[in-house]
């Protein structure tokens, strides 16, 4: 324990160290440069999180050359700030205009946007910021205290374990929807099919690309999500000619009420724990964090019937989970040198170019770097919450902008965002197409969330299934063998969940519950 305090001491000292910096020929003496870089990082992160489509990967990649002139500590602190800052910003557009900029904020749309429609955008935004803050602080503590042993746990996850985890995730996708079970399953399957488009990992064969080379790498997540949520919402709004809702007329308060506080603390805690656990897993774990937290909440909450209609728990849990996951996804990077996602791969790139080989030796050979980065995460999270809470008022004002001005701007930002990913106009057309598909689905009463989850999980599931089969030379029992207790456990959990969903008596009750709600 003492060791931790000593190490964190090193970290905080490094963060606040006064340095002499020469920039553009001017020398500034005694500036806490590292902390300034942290602030710049989280500011940028918030900004790109708010802008749809422009994600942390592209931003960090573009800033990499700039960071080469900084010290390694300052560079990594800034890049990390961009990453977790984006997790804060991502919820803003999801709540205000039903536009998920990152995969993690898809679930935030479900209840966050409904809250905004009820004039409760303020409490939703505040809940997202505070939940993220708590989750960020807590999970950073986990990184500081348990990083090496947790990295060993991450290594226990092989293809079989991932496959079974994805199965569990997919079964819970059905729970995401609150309407018809058949429709939810159909949407999951449609999502799975869309996920198959592109090059097959094993054989390299192109599937469902119809000779269009832009489809060779598959359909982009952002393209689907922005079409199905953002564009679909705009079409839906424009359809109601005169009666477009004015969210702000109903605004009663900006911050959560006492009642809200009572309802959010438990979901925040559960979301944080689940997010921290899933974030450790490289290869799709973090993706599942917010979906998993939402599903869990919907199952355990006594306000389950409000989910999808503006339940504050539906914002608190996934937002905490995704920020916790963002923080703990540093564990494989810092302890094993294995990047768990594209952003972490960039961080490795940044370290290598600075001449640092990422891996377990960083902790002992460069304690200032390692602990400085950890300490900066607390400081950065604090900065984010201080920055974000006062901004809520400003965001709410945004909703008073007349819709005839607001929606073309949203469309423009979406188009720019989608285009910026691979600089292909094709993606913008594809987004519009998904907007139409989303509209048709909405008319049919099919919800987009299960489709998105199927779309994300489908390719991961297939990849891991086939890899597990290759490794076992085609033995299907590899998933349930006693030598793989983790995989077996997930499959059992998935089976139980399936029974709960499908069991006739329970199903009837479920329908009754929804019938009661609808009246």
């Amino acid at each position, binding site marked *: 324990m003492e060791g931790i305090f000593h190490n964190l001491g090193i970290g905080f000292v490094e963060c606040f160290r006064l340095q002499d910096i020469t920039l553009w020929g001017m020398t500034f003496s005694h500036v806490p440069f590292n902390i300034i870089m942290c602030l710049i990082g989280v500011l940028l992160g918030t900004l790109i999180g708010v802008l749809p489509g422009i994600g942390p*990967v*592209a931003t*960090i*990649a*573009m800033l*990499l*050359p700039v960071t*080469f002139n900084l010290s390694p500590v300052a560079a990594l602190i800034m890049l990390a700030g961009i990453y977790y800052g984006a997790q804060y910003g991502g919820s803003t557009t999801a709540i205000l205009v039903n536009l998920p900029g990152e995969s993690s904020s898809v679930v935030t749309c479900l209840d966050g946007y409904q809250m905004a429609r009820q004039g409760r955008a303020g409490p939703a935004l505040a809940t997202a910021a505070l939940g993220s803050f708590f989750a960020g602080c807590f999970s950073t503590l986990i990184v500081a205290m348990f990083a090496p042993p947790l990295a060993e746990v*991450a*290594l*226990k996850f*092989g*293809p079989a374990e991932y496959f079974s985890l994805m199965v569990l995730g997919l079964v819970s996708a059905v729970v995401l929807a609150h309407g018809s079970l058949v429709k939810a399953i159909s949407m999951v399957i449609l999502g799975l099919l869309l996920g198959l488009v592109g*090059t097959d*990992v*094993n*054989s*390299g*064969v*192109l599937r469902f690309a119809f000779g269009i*080379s*832009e489809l*060779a*790498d598959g359909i982009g997540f952002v393209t689907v999500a922005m079409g199905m949520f953002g564009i679909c919402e705009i079409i839906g709004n424009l359809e109601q000619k005169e009666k477009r809702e004015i969210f702000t007329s109903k605004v009663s308060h900006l911050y959560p009420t006492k009642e809200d506080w009572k309802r959010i603390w438990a979901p925040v805690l559960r979301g944080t724990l689940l997010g921290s656990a899933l974030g450790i897993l*490289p*290869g799709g774990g973090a993706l599942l964090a917010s979906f998993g937290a939402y599903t869990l909440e919907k199952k355990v909450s006594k306000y389950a019937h409000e989910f999808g209609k503006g339940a504050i728990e539906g914002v608190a849990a996934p937002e905490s989970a995704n920020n916790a996951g963002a923080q703990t996804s540093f564990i*494989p990077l810092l302890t*094993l*040198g*294995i*990047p768990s996602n*594209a952003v972490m*791969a*960039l961080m*490795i*790139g940044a370290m*290598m*170019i*600075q*001449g640092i*080989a*990422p*891996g*377990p*030796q960083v902790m002992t050979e460069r304690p200032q770097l390692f602990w400085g980065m950890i300490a900066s995460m607390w400081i950065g999270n604090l900065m984010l919450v201080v920055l974000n809470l006062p901004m809520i008022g400003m965001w709410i004002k945004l909703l008073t902008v007349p819709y005839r001005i607001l929606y073309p701007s949203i469309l423009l930002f979406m188009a720019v965002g989608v285009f910026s990913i*691979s*600089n*292909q106009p094709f993606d913008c057309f594809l987004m519009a197409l998904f907007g139409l598909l989303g509209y048709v689905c909405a008319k049919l009463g099919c919800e987009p969330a299960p489709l998105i989850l199927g779309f994300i999980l489908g390719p991961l599931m297939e*990849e891991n299934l086939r*890899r597990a089969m*290759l*490794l076992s*030379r085609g033995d299907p029992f590899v998933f349930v063998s006693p030598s793989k207790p983790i995989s077996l456990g997930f499959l059992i959990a998935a089976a139980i969940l399936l029974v709960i969903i499908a069991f006739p008596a329970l199903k009837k009750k479920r329908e009754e519950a929804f019938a009661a709600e609808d009246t």
Partner: protein
Amino acid sequence: MRRLAAFLALTAAIPLAAAQSWPSRPLRLVIPYAAGGPVDVSGRLLAAKLQESLGQPVVPENKPGAGGNIGVDQVAKSAPDGYTLVMSAIATLAINPSLYGSLPYDPLKDLRHVTLLVQVPNVLIVRNDLPAKNVKELIALAKERPGKLDFGSGSTGSTGHLAGEMFKMMTGTYMVHIPYKGSAPAIADMMAGRIDLMFDNLASALPSIKAEKLRALATTTRKRSSFLPDLPTLDEAGLKGFDMTTWWGVSVAAKTPQPIVDRLSAEILKAMDAPDMKERLHNMGSDAPSVRTPDQFAAFAAAELKTYTELVRRSGAKAE
């Protein structure tokens, strides 16, 4: 008819005039991969350097898709005026033509190769608890357990995969190929003991080798790498002539005027030789490439294309 002749004469004159004033407007550097990979990072480094020396903005532009083919194709079909450059690589110039069956461009006829920027060796790494301590023991082990060893790679048709196929062919062994999406998850699975060996590029394997989480047995290049000077090459270990590197460089459209190609090549070489750039490329695992001039690069690309066409054909790795 006379008008046409005049027109032709005029268009023939334009490149010369253009070459003298080149560059008079911003350049585009197409990076045919998503932001963040090693090609992207080195491309951005180069763009910053060229911008200084050419006095015109050099804008990196990511155009990912179809294993890099989309971006390279756009440059192959761009105006041959020296304003559109592309980061071309072993995949798009040497492997994809045979891997994909048909490509919209010809890697030798539609492109003029300017300068090779980076050449990174692949290393043969094995999991720590694999009994084989050197290449000879590994071959013996693979012969003793045919079809039992697993070798991972970052993707089907990657240099890591093809190096593995080459190894199998030269040693007459059989091992099962397990493709991943990128080499990081493959390394993780190897640390956990789920796969046995892998041919990975030096830059991504080095941290794990240094941390002794994995064991390196050999490099795939003819010369030893300055990063691991004690590590033998496969050639030394008995696989005579084994020489594979991962490389990338800069190309332009085929009909780009020679003066522009020469100037561009000179500027890129100057940038590469600058101490800070040299150090950063070195940190990415690259010892300065021996191939330098446009003609050397063109000859090198042609030779590589021949090697990999044969290798892809014999290994049966092919995308439709």
